[in-house]
């Protein structure tokens, strides 16, 4: 804690954002890291709590007070080292994490919390600028080989951890480029793809192999992988989108959000990025169904594509509209501090212009004579609690309303692992939720030597959770391999003994 009274001296500062009209004119990022002075001050706001709730709030268990302290002492390099000790990719989480750490920050009880995420991003970016982040090749090789299926955040984190333990890692990716959701799901304006590429390249320099365009389960079977590798980690996400099966779903202009976003990302990354032709949202009235992060990404993307009007529907009633950092006594009793508060959240995409409607249920899509989407009919939902305490959902009679639209994006979540590919082989045991069954203790699936981590195991979740799972799974795989080593050694000893005897 560089300054004992820092939290009383400095106000919270967030990274500078470009103004809306400026930033919607391009598809790149629009925030910039904290200046060095601001970084020091923001670090100094941390109180170095005896019980750092932030650290508990963070799925990675980041030692936030430690690197805040070092940042406050202008020791950014060591701060970054402390950050990297628990988080493989702060350049990602520093941008796209909803920051449950900040929701749990003790200062947040009665002040704006410490801007942990901004500090994280600033440290990471400064690290790259200064060349502090360099590939770390292991000193020795264990001789073990591990296959990782999926190159999203879980897969990448596991790959880096395992590689650093000296194991040889091969990452299989079904798409043409590595990165998973980081590359295809998250729009550039939140995370520019060269940052993902930079990280992949670092990992390659650390001697991790990437095999893109290989769909495990189709191009190579799980059994084959098991034969070729000492361990297999499944980190292939929960990409099976939840669909909205109502009348008119097959209308031209009704799209799954992930497809819309992936297409948009591909376009941004491709050479024809400058062209505005053929963009799905240009000049259209767009409805985004689903009020989550994916929905938000759709809004920002549609805005940048030049949509005429954007409306977002959410089936749940509007949560409390609180200040950005509600104090402890303002928080809803269902989610008291230090829990993630249930509240109305305004994303940067919302800031860029969109109408938000709550407690609305989609009834049917309407089409024009060409089968193109022309409108969405909705009705209101009333939510009440019955005498047993059960939540009751009831459509409100006579509340139907027609919303003219030409593009509707379905962003109502995911329902487990993609069912083609290796799931279709039928060897893996799945949970009711469609995810691969594996424990939180050792991440082992029902198949010996096959592990699962990230969304494929826990279901759709945050990038930070994916990294956390990747790390934990790597640790479990390492012990598994160490055990194997002991066993091999034992066998070797006994055979030697036998030969001698």
């Amino acid at each position, binding site marked *: 804690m560089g300054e004992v009274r820092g939290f009383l001296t400095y106000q919270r500062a967030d990274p500078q954002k470009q103004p809306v009209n400026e930033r919607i004119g391009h598809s790149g990022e629009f925030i910039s890291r904290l200046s060095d002075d601001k970084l020091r001050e923001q670090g100094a706001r941390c*109180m170095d709590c005896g019980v750092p709730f932030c*650290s508990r709030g963070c799925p990675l268990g980041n030692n936030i007070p430690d690197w805040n302290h070092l940042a406050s002492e202008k020791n950014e390099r060591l701060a970054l080292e402390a950050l990297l000790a628990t988080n493989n990719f702060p350049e990602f989480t520093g941008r796209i994490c909803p920051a449950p750490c900040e929701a749990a920050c003790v200062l947040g009880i009665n002040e704006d919390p410490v801007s942990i995420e901004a500090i994280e991003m600033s440290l990471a970016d400064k690290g790259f600028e200064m060349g502090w982040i360099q590939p770390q090749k292991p*000193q020795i090789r264990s001789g073990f080989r591990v296959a990782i299926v999926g190159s999203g955040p879980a897969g990448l984190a596991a790959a880096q951890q395992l590689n650093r333990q000296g194991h040889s890692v091969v990452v299989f990716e079904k798409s043409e480029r590595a990165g998973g959701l980081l590359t295809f799901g998250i729009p550039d304006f939140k995370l520019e793809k060269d940052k993902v590429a930079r990280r992949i390249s670092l990992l390659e320099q650390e001697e991790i192999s990437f095999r893109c365009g290989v769909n495990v389960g189709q191009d190579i079977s799980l059994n084959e992988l098991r034969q070729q590798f000492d361990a297999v980690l499944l980190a292939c996400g929960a990409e099976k989108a939840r669909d909205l099966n109502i009348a008119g779903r097959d209308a031209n202009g009704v799209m799954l959000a992930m497809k819309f976003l992936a297409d948009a990302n591909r376009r941004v990354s491709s050479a024809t990025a400058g062209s505005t032709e053929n963009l799905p949202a240009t000049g259209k009235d767009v409805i985004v169904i689903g009020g989550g992060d994916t929905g938000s990404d759709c809004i920002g993307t549609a805005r940048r594509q030049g949509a005429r009007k954007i409306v977002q529907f959410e089936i749940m009633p509007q949560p409390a509209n609180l200040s950005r950092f509600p104090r402890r006594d303002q928080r809803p009793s269902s989610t008291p501090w230090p829990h993630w508060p249930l509240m109305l959240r305004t994303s940067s995409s919302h800031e860029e212009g969109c109408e938000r409607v709550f407690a609305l249920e989609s009834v049917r899509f309407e089409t024009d004579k060409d089968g193109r989407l022309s409108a969405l009919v909705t009705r209101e939902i009333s939510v009440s609690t019955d005498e047993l305490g059960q939540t009751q959902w009831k459509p409100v009679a006579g509340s139907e309303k027609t919303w003219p639209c030409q593009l509707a994006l379905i962003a109502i979540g995911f329902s487990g692992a993609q069912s083609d590919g290796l799931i279709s082989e039928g060897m893996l045991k799945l949970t009711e939720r469609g995810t691969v069954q594996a424990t939180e203790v050792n991440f082992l699936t029902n198949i010996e030597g096959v592990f699962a981590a990230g969304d494929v195991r826990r279901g759709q979740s945050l990038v930070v959770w994916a990294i956390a799972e990747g790390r934990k799974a790597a640790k479990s795989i390492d012990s598994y391999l160490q055990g194997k080593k002991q066993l091999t050694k034992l066998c070797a000893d006994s055979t030697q003994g036998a030969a001698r005897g």
Partner: protein
Amino acid sequence: MRNNSFNKMLLDDPRIEQRDACGVGFIAHLKGNRSFQVVCDGLQMLRRMDHRGGRCADGLTSDGAGIVVQIPHELMKKSASRQGRSLPAAGEYALSMHFLPTDKKEREFWQNQLQQCAREYGLEVLFLRDVPCDASVLGQAAKLTQPHIQQAVYVRHNSNQNRHNFDWNLFAMRKNLENLARERYGVKQRDFYIASLSRENICYKALTSSDTLSAFYTDLQNPLFISAYAMVHLRFSTNTLPSWPLAQPFRVLCHNGEINTLRGNINAMHARSFLFKNDKLQQEIDRLGPICTPAMSDSAMLDNAVEFLLHSGRPLTQVMSMVIPEPWEKHSEMSQELKDYFEYQSYLMEPWDGPALIAFCGGQQIGAILDRNGLRPARYWITTDGHVIMASEAGVVERSAEQIIEKGRLSAGRFFLVDMAEGRVVPDDEIKSRLAAGKPYGDWLKSERVIADDLFNAESLDETDDTQEYTSASSSMPKLLRAFGYTQECLRLLLAPMANEGKEPDGSMGTDTPLAVLSTKNQLLYNYFKQLFAQVTNPPIDAMREELVTSLSTHLGGEQNILSEGVEHCSVVRLNQPILRNSQLRRLFGSEIKQLSVVRLSTTFDIQIENLRQAIDKLCKNAVECVQAGKNLLVLSDKDVSNSRAAIPALLATSAVHHALIRAGERTRCSLVVESGEPREVHHFALLIGYGAAAVNPYLALDVIATRDKNYSFKADLSAKKLEENYCKAICSGLLKIMSKMGISTLHSYRGSQIFEALGLGSELIDNYFTWTPSRIGGIGLAELESDMRTRHTSAFESLERATSTLPEHAGQYHWRAGGERHLHSPEMISALQNATRINSFEEFKKFCAVLDEDNAAHLHLRSLLGFSPQRPPVELSRVEPAQSIVRRFATGAMSFGSLSKEAHETIAVAMNRIGARSNSGEGGEDPQRSLPDSNGDSRRSAIRQVASARFGVTSSYLVHADELQIKMAQGAKPGEGGQLPGHKVDANIAKVRHSSVGITLISPPPHHDIYSIEDLAQLIFDLRNANRSARISVKLVSESGIGTIAAGVAKAKADVILISGHEGGTGASPLTSIKHAGLPWELGLAETHRTLVENNLRERVILQTDGQLRTPRDLAIATLLGAEEWGIATGALITLGCVMMRKCHLNTCPVGIATQDPELRKKFAGTPEALINYVFMLAEGLREIMAQLGYKTVDDMVGQAQNLQKKEVSNERLAKIDLDFLLKQPDGHFSVAARGKSTQIREIESGIDMTTLLPALHDALSTGRRVSLSLPISNLDRSVGTLVSSEISKHHSTKQIPDELLKVTFRGIAGQSFMAFAVAGISALLEGEANDYLCKGLSGAKVSVRPPRQSLLVAERSVICGNTALYGATSGELYARGRAGERFAVRNSGAQAVVEGVGDHGCEYMTGGSVVVLGAIGRNFAAGMSGGIAYVYDPQEINRNRINTELVQIDSTLSQSEEKFLHDQLRKHAELTDSSVAHRLLENWHAEKHHFLAVCPPAYRAMLNRHTEINEQTESSFRQPILPKGSETHRGLHG
């Protein structure tokens, strides 16, 4: 010679749990004239110190009373002739007094043995005499254990023996008989005991009360019983069952106090007995057996040592000065010859350190000596008829004023000696210079002894060399750090602050991690040991402010035969402190010092080939062989740790070698130096030294500091050398702190004293390597230690190769960290508790409980290993007593206003008052406004008010407006330590309630300066009883080994409530070392206390309360079953008010407004009484559910029913090794079991002067509206006079203006202790005579003057007028004392004005306000820790100036005009009230004399005074007017 059975005997030595304190005294005729009167006076002395002794539950059996007198030759002659024998001349025969078994056969056996043994030693038993006893005066407990008491007369069989041989043979024979008795009855035997065996004197002692000793021993009533002296002792022990042999006096001495370093002294005495050499007596010496008789009390063992040394031919005074040396190292006024003498003696023997008044007699000498700190009172009179009277109190023998020609007192480290052959009192300086001149000590030292500092400075240390070493070390450093278990946290949180700032870092809010044995993290061996500390029976000391008595010096080299006295003892290397830098160790190795014969023994072993046990065995064997081969410095080194060689834990290696050497009889021939990468925290060094190391070189800690690595927060702008120096300094002051916690002043005594309790170590490990260390619950052994050690080694030397970071792990021992050590206060737990209590949901509360209680949850505490096993059918919940009645049993912990914000403090009080429970003011006074109810009916008053060592705001009014008064003896987070509230935290509000000044730093002393011993506590309890007749008196103790016996003592001292606090308790600020490593869990303390009290039939007298991280109903149920009827919650309460365990209380930055005084932060406080009330009720409801399940309808029924508990089945092997029988075993003993307390203490206040005389007079004055004057006699039996009547004024008339001198009383005589304690305005007392200790303690406005009687022959200014610790914690009022005062005059005075004519050591210590004028000599260390107030010291000879401790104060020799006026006024009043000749003289020559005054004042206080001068002048003009017209007194006289 000293065979195995001898060692076994020592091994079986039970832990010493005997602690005593007492009244001590003697009377002697200067010329040695014998009379019966002397014996009678001795007995009177005993009677008049009755309040200093202890009584058993039966009310009659005392802890022991005794008298030593010269052999009554005439009486014995008569007795001999009755048996038809003729007695040789006096001095030609010896008389023994022995206690025999009552069994007839056994008695016959011993009578035969006496004869037989006597013959072996050339003696003959002339005849035996059954001592006439009247058993009817004994109490029940004494009767049950009464021995057969007999005397025997011995004569020389062989008349060739000279007297010296005769004495030696008597001694040797007695030791031999004692050995026989141990062989027959076991080590702990008390069946056969020889109370005295001497040619000169005899000891009569018994478990009778002080007034029935002579009724029991009818000899003492016989006028033929004449003696020139009588030495008496009245015992107040905390030991459990009464014991006849342990009554005092012993053979040479009797003792008031406690020997803190006993274990070390015994070990050393035992070890050095192997070196005893005497050409003629070798065979007998070898037969002596243990010098210190096993299983006796500390005083008895000291007596043994002294007695033995006397037989070496040294004079009595020399022996006493060896065992209780005066602190000499830092003495500015001591001659070099005397310093040489003491230094020389220090190489023969370590001090027996602890509070002590020792009276001794031998030959023609009788005398007394006081410990180095002057912690016990001792007063003497010399009378016109040639008698000398010395005792713990003045006035214990009736003498009229004109019979007394000298009055004095003993001061620290000084002798008082009557030489009856010379017929005079020999002054201390004469004794000492005679001793110093006895041998050419200075020359011997010069020729032989090497001072290490000279050695180190001789060639300047090669700094570059050091740097090279660091660079070469750097590549292996990450590995070494891991191998020795370093963590990032220990580097950043502990080492960095020590290296950067030179002091140990502080922390807040206690510790909440599991005990080492319960932890799942790899623990170092050090963490299994807890530091012990002083409470009640002895005081901790303040090493910071009373530095002059401390010493960290140590020496290297072997000891020699103590029976000789020659130059050979000087063959040592003296170190100023025990921490060796790397270069210093090299220097010791490198140079050819003839005094040292060094060998380096590796403590590492090949992990592929050997195991730990083999490695230790080898090391020990090696060590013994090396010493036998003549090596005298063993360096235990793990420097060669490597990939293949792992290090034995340094503590294990050290202690194992230490004990192996003791067993081999080689220990004192050599010194141990530890060169290890492992030690780094203060606690580690304390343990290494406590288990035998003379010096430690922590090379890795020093190396890592020298890297100045920013990663670990080392300050790169300081040089490596500076950082290292800082670090060593921090370690040294930390060591001093740990020592002083136990009341130990010198490292020399601390070395090997083993003042630790082990927790979680198995008995085999303890017995083999940490012999005699208490370890009550068993636990792990060598195998587990080895496995942990190997894990660390592997992680360092194998896994590190594959690790992603070279940094050591974080650990999370102090601050919670994800993946780190488990904490009770996890984010989940805190948020669950806050949520449940905010919304008052029992469902949510159960979720919170589940976080902590579930079977599969972490084993955080010992109680986590306990499960319920109901012994009765369950009852219906509805039949269990309601929560409303249960909640009354709750108290909140003592948290002061000052540590807590006003808002937090008052919210707690409101909550507790609403439900009829009790909140605790903590240490720091309380705003009187809070006693008035709020408009909504709420009360913000704290029901419990604390009396702590600083006595902040402890006024008569504060005391009387409480329901319970709690004496804080210790605090869980830092037992044995004081505290400090820095000036910047003392704002107007705090200053007001603490009766101090804004911005002036407030220091809490480590001890209560009126409690250095158990009888002192009894006196304070008595004071408080008088100060508040209706309050319960509670004593707060912290759990540690032996707390049961302490609690028994506290019960005998008549407390109503005993609070057993766990070690984990929260705190505002405490050194991290203390938070983690001092004190023990409450489970152990509570179970031990409950059991001990039941076994001694004392349980019914007191209520037991416990606290220490109690969080859930399950915790409460376990506490109740283990014996507590009430519970305290503190941190838990704070959490419900919003505390999030920032652990930043010491920084004043609490972000939730709880532990801060910052007005901005206080606004953030959001706690409500409701949340706390919800918590207490949910705890009670939860407890009811458990009660129903266990079948108890009321809490009362459940108290102490430990049979409902059992240890849970655990699969973890380590946990399985823990043995909880200590917690669960039932009390045994022959007394009926009263399981729970009702507080039935006898209050003893009804018959006092206050009740019988002063109170009626007060009522009279108030009802008639007239002043009352009284004249009364007083004696030392009248204690706390003026306190009760003052409480009456404070209670009922606090709103009225009480006129000055409403009650004006003249007392004639010797006042008992605590005269005018807490006396208030309106009372005016004149004492014509003399006062004892604690005069005007807590003075709250009264005006008191003390002067010698008019007929006195004494020169008043040279005589003592009052005892120690006068004006302690006084807040207002005046004291004029014509004469000299004792030690610590006006300690912690914060507002009283005083004039006195001389003071002892440590005058005005910790003073924060008021004024003191001293018209005579001051003692040393005047004004230490004085942060406020002003003292004027008359210093015409310019001697006093050098005795002032100027650390905080400034000395001005010119006084301002207003000061001059003030001083003049004070002198005038002094002259008027006491007729002081000094004052008269000064006033007459005022213009010349005023220049001889020094003004002693802290600069900050002076600045504040200057600022407020104007304001003061204004308030003075509006000074209250008396409501009664002058001259309306009525006069009532008693006895004229």
